[in-house]
């Protein structure tokens, strides 16, 4: 499944800045290396506080690294200097954050169109694409609602398709379904897999939920507690399309779940 590495993370490290007169601060992330292939759905799982968000922030170029490099399509991203950061790497890396970060003064539709608008790509074709995505995640009829009028799940959907709409080659997702109830969560996982099946984007999906990591990914990386290092790597060969709600009954699921849980201890 994995083709050419699209994204290469090499020896990436992060520590808080030194404070005057104190011992050096601990590493949040230390010498982390992995690659993500084109069209791959990579899940990263780690205990809370293991620097997962920091990792994604660095890849998304909204936070600088203390060491190491990030390459996208073999080009080195300017990641060391906080001033040279290029958030989103010129719209090539999308980022679905834990909070939906919808603009509260824009309606659902206008939130979804926001990236197209600022990129100057708003036309009939992209507009139709946005409408299609809105229908695909069941937000039809809510286009003119403001974020505060939507439920948590709906806001999540809107924030998801706001990233999908401009088609970045890589999408980072930071526990996007973390705060939702189990039912909504399963529904959104299904939606995500369905959408992913349409375009087969490259996705880096961070979670602390083992079942979610297995259910969604082609491959999963297990991180240790801070400083984050890779504790294990697993290919997930459960065939697609997958049945999210019934995934626990698949023969591969149980042993994998146990192994990952052991690595997380």
């Amino acid at each position, binding site marked *: 499944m994995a083709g050419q590495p699209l994204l290469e993370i090499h020896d990436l490290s*992060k520590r808080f*800045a030194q404070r005057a007169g104190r011992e050096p601060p601990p590493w949040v992330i230390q010498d982390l290396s992995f690659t993500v292939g084109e069209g791959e759905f990579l899940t990263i799982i780690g205990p809370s*506080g293991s620097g997962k968000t920091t990792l994604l922030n660095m890849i998304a170029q909204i*936070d600088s690294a203390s060491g190491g490099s990030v390459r996208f399509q073999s080009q080195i991203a300017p990641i060391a200097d906080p001033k040279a950061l290029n958030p989103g790497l010129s719209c090539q890396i999308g980022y679905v954050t834990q*909070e939906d970060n919808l603009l509260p003064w824009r309606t659902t539709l206008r939130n979804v169109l926001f990236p197209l608008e600022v990129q100057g790509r708003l036309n009939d074709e992209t507009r139709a694409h946005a409408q299609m995505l809105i229908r695909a995640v069941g937000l039809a009829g809510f286009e003119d609602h403001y974020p505060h009028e939507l439920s948590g799940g709906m806001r999540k959907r809107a924030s998801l398709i706001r990233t999908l709409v401009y088609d970045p080659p890589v999408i980072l997702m930071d526990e996007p379904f973390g705060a939702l109830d189990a039912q909504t969560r399963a529904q959104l996982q299904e939606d995500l897999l369905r959408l992913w099946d349409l375009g087969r984007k490259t996705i880096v999906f961070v979670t602390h939920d083992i079942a979610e990591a297995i259910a969604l990914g082609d491959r999963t990386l297990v991180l240790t507690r801070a400083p984050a290092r890779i504790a294990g790597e697993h290919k997930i060969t459960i065939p697609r399309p997958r049945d999210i709600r019934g995934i626990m009954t698949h023969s591969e699921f149980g042993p994998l779940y146990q192994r990952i849980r052991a690595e997380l201890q």
Partner: protein
Amino acid sequence: MATLEGSPDSNGAIRGGRAGALMRERGDQLLVLVVLIAIWQALSMIYGVYWIGSPWGVLVRFSEGVLKGELLRHTSYTLWEAVAGFIIGAVPAAALPFLLRRRPIITAILDPFMVGGYGAPKLALAPLFVLWFGIGIESKVALVAITVFFIVYFSALAGIRSLDAKLVQMAQVMGANERDVARHIVFPGAVPYIFTGLRIAMPYSIGGAVIAELISANRGLGYLIQLGAMNFDTTGVFVALVAVTCIVIVGNWSVNVVERRLLRWRPPADLKLETGA
């Protein structure tokens, strides 16, 4: 950790050099003060002390005024008007929502009148008060009182409305009667709101007194300002202005001190949030 913002580098950097940054900030602020005084001095030299009293001249006159008691006398008139008006306006304004707490219909009837009174330009009543109460202290007290009243009324009302019904129920379950509830639940809960109103009303009370004095009076700081302007004595005007500003600053400070003593139970973050707003 769960946010897009958490940039450890920049946070750390700020915290790391905090002492140094603070020193630099204080230095910058001192520099700005020096520059401001220099500009003032330069302006008074360019236009002459006739138009703009010099900083030194103002300082000399100010201390003269304080030493001779002249300035203190006028200040005390203004202060007295402001304090009397403040109390006459604030006490019933704070009490009314309490008395009407169990009578929502009366509160509702009053509402449009209170909103109208709150929005109405009270300072425009100054000539009327001068007409009714003469140019003495009474007209100023009346103007200050009516200005303060509406501001404090709405803050006290907000305090009553913010009341947590669950707390009242809890107290009632534990056997509290109506008076206990009012004293131990409603009042403490409303105090922060009332103080917000007092803090807002404070500068208005001094401003109201000064404006009434500007329009018609024979003593007080507003009168001093008007007198200085009529005699083309800008230094005198500046001295009076400095005195007024001092009162406002001291007034603000004392409201804050009283508030902090009365509201020790509040989490400090809350207080910070409010003063920061």
